[in-house]
């Protein structure tokens, strides 16, 4: 693990320095000069970076120490093991100086709340410096009233991960048109493989296929719906739902009550590895789970972007991105801004991506995973328009009602109109209270 190496090396250097200083004073001085770097490390300001992603701790600390070495300001990760208590902690401490200097959050409407409450520092200038290397879609996710308030901590693209062996056995290659896609679904089903993984585990996954089918039918409608300028009961939305329902009826999805995806104790990887399920629509951050289950990226699994349902629609892909926020009221705001500036730079992103294996939102930093490198290239070359995912793109009150209803639809099927009416009722209420 790269982080452990860094720390061990550092300790060894420090130990050697101490020993030589004790035994050979003159050479110790020279030694100390040579060790100027690690001296700088100990003299660097270490800030607190709070987050709820416990298993990323080593990665955060690697990046934090690299930052300390590079710009004299770094960070140590402060882990919260649960999302809801993490949110509660930030919400209550955000206005005080007890707030962590840097913290991870969620983009879009979930971020708007903390921006409105004046919890996040304006980092527009840092973005302007790096504007050429980040897509507009990503920037918009963190921009409110013309100002940008966070750096992208990670970016996950929502793609179809597919089992390469299953595809090979069925004589399939990643489809590029919707017709090819539906044909692949039918072929897989005929071969006794469930084509698509679906789950309601944790409640939230209900929106995954909804957003894809709507976006790929009519991206403009998707954008308008997120902004409250269209209704869930509009014809375009209804037809997307009916299309989804049709695919469910054909048996193209796994039983959402049986398959679990959301937690560490999930069973999806087993189904996938054993060739029982061919594909799943999920964020690229899920790939490490497949890897720890013994699947090799590139050899055993790959990814492709779902083809558009409407062939005339532009190339689109859904992303999710969480920001790294500088606390507005933090005790070390100036230092935190410096750290964030480093994080958004090419060097900073390269270190982060090397440690995590994630995709970088910077277009000049390739991922260390072959699957993600290919994906990154596809998105760049294809000029894909990037849309923020449903969870953050629309007010959260609507999302919570919607995912419950989508879960119901996935379990029961049937006429989507009553479900959409229920969601619209909440949407009306929410948009009225916002205006």
């Amino acid at each position, binding site marked *: 693990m790269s982080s452990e190496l860094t720390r061990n090396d550092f300790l060894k250097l420090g130990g050697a320095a101490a020993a030589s200083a004790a035994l050979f004073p003159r050479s110790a001085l020279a030694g100390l000069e040579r060790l100027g770097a690690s001296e700088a490390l100990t003299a660097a300001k270490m800030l607190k970076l709070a987050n709820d992603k416990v298993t990323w701790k080593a990665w955060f600390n690697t990046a934090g120490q690299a930052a300390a070495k590079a710009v004299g300001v770094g960070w140590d990760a402060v882990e919260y093991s649960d999302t809801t208590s993490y949110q509660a902690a930030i919400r209550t*401490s955000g206005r005080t100086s007890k707030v962590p200097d840097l913290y991870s959050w969620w983009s879009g409407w979930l971020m708007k709340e903390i921006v409105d409450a004046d919890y996040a520092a304006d980092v527009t200038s840092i973005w302007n410096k790096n504007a050429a290397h980040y897509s507009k879609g990503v920037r918009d996710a963190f921009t409110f009233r013309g100002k940008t308030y966070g750096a992208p901590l990670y970016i996950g693209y929502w793609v179809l991960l597919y089992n390469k062996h299953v595809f090979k056995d069925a004589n399939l290659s990643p489809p590029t048109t919707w017709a090819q896609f539906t044909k692949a679904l039918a072929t897989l089903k005929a071969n006794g493989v469930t084509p698509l993984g679906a789950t309601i585990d944790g409640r939230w996954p209900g929106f995954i296929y909804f957003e894809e089918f709507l976006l790929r039918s009519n991206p403009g409608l998707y954008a308008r719906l997120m902004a409250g300028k269209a209704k869930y009961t509009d014809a375009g939305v209804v037809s997307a739902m009916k299309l989804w329902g049709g695919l469910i009826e054909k048996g193209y999805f796994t039983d959402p009550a049986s398959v679990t995806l959301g937690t*560490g104790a999930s069973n999806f990887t087993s189904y996938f590895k054993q060739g029982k399920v061919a594909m799943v629509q999920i964020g690229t951050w899920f790939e490490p789970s497949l890897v720890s289950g013994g699947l090799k990226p590139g050899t055993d699994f790959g990814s492709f972007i779902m083809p558009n349902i409407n062939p005339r629609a532009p190339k689109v892909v859904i992303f999710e991105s969480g920001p790294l926020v500088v606390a507005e009221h933090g005790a070390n705001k100036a230092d935190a801004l410096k750290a964030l500036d480093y994080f958004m730079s090419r060097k900073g992103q390269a270190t982060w991506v090397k440690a995590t294996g994630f995709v970088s939102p910077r277009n000049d930093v390739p991922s260390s995973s072959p699957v993600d490198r290919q994906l990154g290239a596809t998105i760049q070359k294809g000029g894909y328009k990037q849309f923020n995912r449903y969870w953050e793109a629309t007010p959260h009150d609507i999302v919570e009602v919607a995912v419950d209803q989508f879960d119901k639809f996935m379990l029961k099927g049937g006429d989507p109109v009553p479900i959409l009416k229920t969601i619209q009722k909440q949407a009306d209420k929410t948009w009225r209270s916002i205006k």
Partner: protein
Amino acid sequence: MATADVALEAPAARRLFSLARPARNAWLIVLGLVWLLPLWLLLITPMKSTPEYTSSSQWALPTHPLRLLSNLRTAWDSAGLGAGFVASLTYGLTGAALAILFGSLGAYAITRLGVRLGFFWFILVFSGTLFPFQMYLVPLFNLYTRTGLYDTWIGMALFYTAIAIPFCLFVMHGFFTTIPSEIQDAARLDGASDFRIYWRIFLPLARGPIAVLLLFQFTWIWNDLLFGLVLSTSDGVRPITPSLLGLQGVYANSGPPVVLAGALIGSLPTVILFLLLGRYLLRGLVLSTGRGRA
């Protein structure tokens, strides 16, 4: 001989439970095995590596059971479990012991020292256990951040003691009312002070309930999730159960074997405590002195 035995050995009983004892025992054994069945997966899954787990049926027996050790180590290192283990141990022992002490002192006062409005004091303290616990979360968090108790050992210990008190009061109160007043009167005649009577007579008599309370309250504190999550965050202060949660979650990528290995680590002390204290209890300690005030 236990009362249940007396009742069931009677000829009439054998007619009602027309199964002979061996048959009855057989059914009980089956029930016991079925009862343990859900734990089977908890046992065999951590003995597999994650790739092994995903390649075969979840029921498949582990090929190399000693992989358990590597999973345990991963879990221990991943989520700050080691520090959490020690922390929870201290919270459980301190909290339970102090709650039993304070609860029994209060129960003694209410039942024996003629405190006025005894029922009022009882319900006041007991009401602490009536509220749905989540409702304490936000106000406590605010209180703790304002007073600097947030993320401190003392903050957690104080809370766990406080929340364990109501039930201890409840049980000790029930027990103390069954102690005949003659014992107290006799001791007073010998010149013992109220406190001495409490310390030398009532507490030792209450060995049974105290053992039960120790077991229950330690287990509760050990298994607490919500308050450990909300009121602490650093390694060494955060208890073990919230630490385990970090192994789950959407962005985690440890598979079921590691997660369940963590669950095993989390379950061990309470199981051990039960094995130690439970035997003591199940052999049948009195919860009352058997005779009442008549």
